[in-house]
């Protein structure tokens, strides 16, 4: 999957905006939004929030977790524990990028947040590689991967799945006559 497609999915997440215009309820195919009143916070999907923000029609309220103190706590926990810790949003990486790139003026301490999220990401990716390595060397058949996000999975998906596939085929070499290895003559 392309990272931009993962981002596309992240754009469905809901954020709060404070509009500077009024508009009745909108009946979208995917559900109702609004009504919009100047100064009154309202929940919208990220794609709409960014669209309105670019037209200077709203201010985006950063999600609760997008906060230096909270992220520092998460970073410490992530470094302390071996397992993947629960993350406040399954699209934390994409949302950080989207909101910081398009609405940094609405987000206090944007640079610090960027660094913290990157630290958390790096720690988690290092863990992901460790688990991939042990999954392969132990020749496991099943792994529980709670708390892993789609973007994290996606950076290593092809590599890990291809490796497992190759390994499976090399292993089925050891059971002649079974497995996928049919002899074919042309």
């Amino acid at each position: 999957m392309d990272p931009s497609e993962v981002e596309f999915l992240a754009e469905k997440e809901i954020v709060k905006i404070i509009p500077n215009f009024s508009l009745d309820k909108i009946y979208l195919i995917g559900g109702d939004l609004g009504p919009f009143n100047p100064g009154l916070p309202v929940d919208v999907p990220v794609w709409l929030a960014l669209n309105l923000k670019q037209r200077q029609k709203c201010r985006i309220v950063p999600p609760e977790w997008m906060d230096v103190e909270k992220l520092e706590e998460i970073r410490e926990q992530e470094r302390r524990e071996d397992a993947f810790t629960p993350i406040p949003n399954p699209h934390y990486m994409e949302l950080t990028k989207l909101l910081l790139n398009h609405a940094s003026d609405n987000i206090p301490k944007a640079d610090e947040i960027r660094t913290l999220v990157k630290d958390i990401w790096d720690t988690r990716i290092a863990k992901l590689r460790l688990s991939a390595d042990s999954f392969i060397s132990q020749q496991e058949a099943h792994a529980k991967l709670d708390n892993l996000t789609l973007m994290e999975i996606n950076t290593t998906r092809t590599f890990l799945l291809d490796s497992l596939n190759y390994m499976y085929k090399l292993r089925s070499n050891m059971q002649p006559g079974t497995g996928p290895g049919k002899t074919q003559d042309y």
Partner: protein
Amino acid sequence: MSDVLSDAGDLSGEEESQEDVLTPAELIARLEEAWLNEKFSPELLENKSEMVECVMEQLTHMEQNLQRVKKGDLKAGIHRVEIDRIRFVLSSYLRSRIQKIEKFFPHVLEKEKSRGDGDPSFLSPEEFAFAKEYLANTETYLKAVALRHMPPNLQTVDMLKAVPEPCLDSFVFLRVKERQENILVEPETDEQSEYVVDLDEGSQHLMRYRTIAPLVASGAVQLI
């Protein structure tokens, strides 16, 4: 103008099999699930042409309404963005099916041939036509560039043998939507023994597609 756009009412599945009535929002959610499942499953999944038609209907309907609205209208602009997003998912979904048909065409056609009378087809009528044509074109091409220059006994290629089958033993990532108990995990090596796992709702796993393929079809798990 709010009237023309405020008609996202319930849409009932007019066709036989659809007993449950989906709201448009649920329909879009189904489309997105089907999209990801199709992207990540090693084999071609059952076609969902009914769903595709319903989505198309929604899109056309909304587009017709929008034609009556003047340009630059804020509300219409938002509707247009949503339409584009849905259209993107729909095209990407159909495209990943086409890619799999191109990759596995002889096997896809073979499965279609051996299908029982009452069983649902894995291909939509359009996809079936595409697969047949793809096979014919590949064969014609191979014949023209290579096979006709070969000795007479070597002028055929068995496509079923020449084109690799989908590997159902591939690993996939999945998220559980409905709790499942006692899923058998087969051992990878002789030293290991088989064991069972419970798949809790909301949990995520990495395991072989073959083990959970029926759960993908039933919608109990979502590939990610």
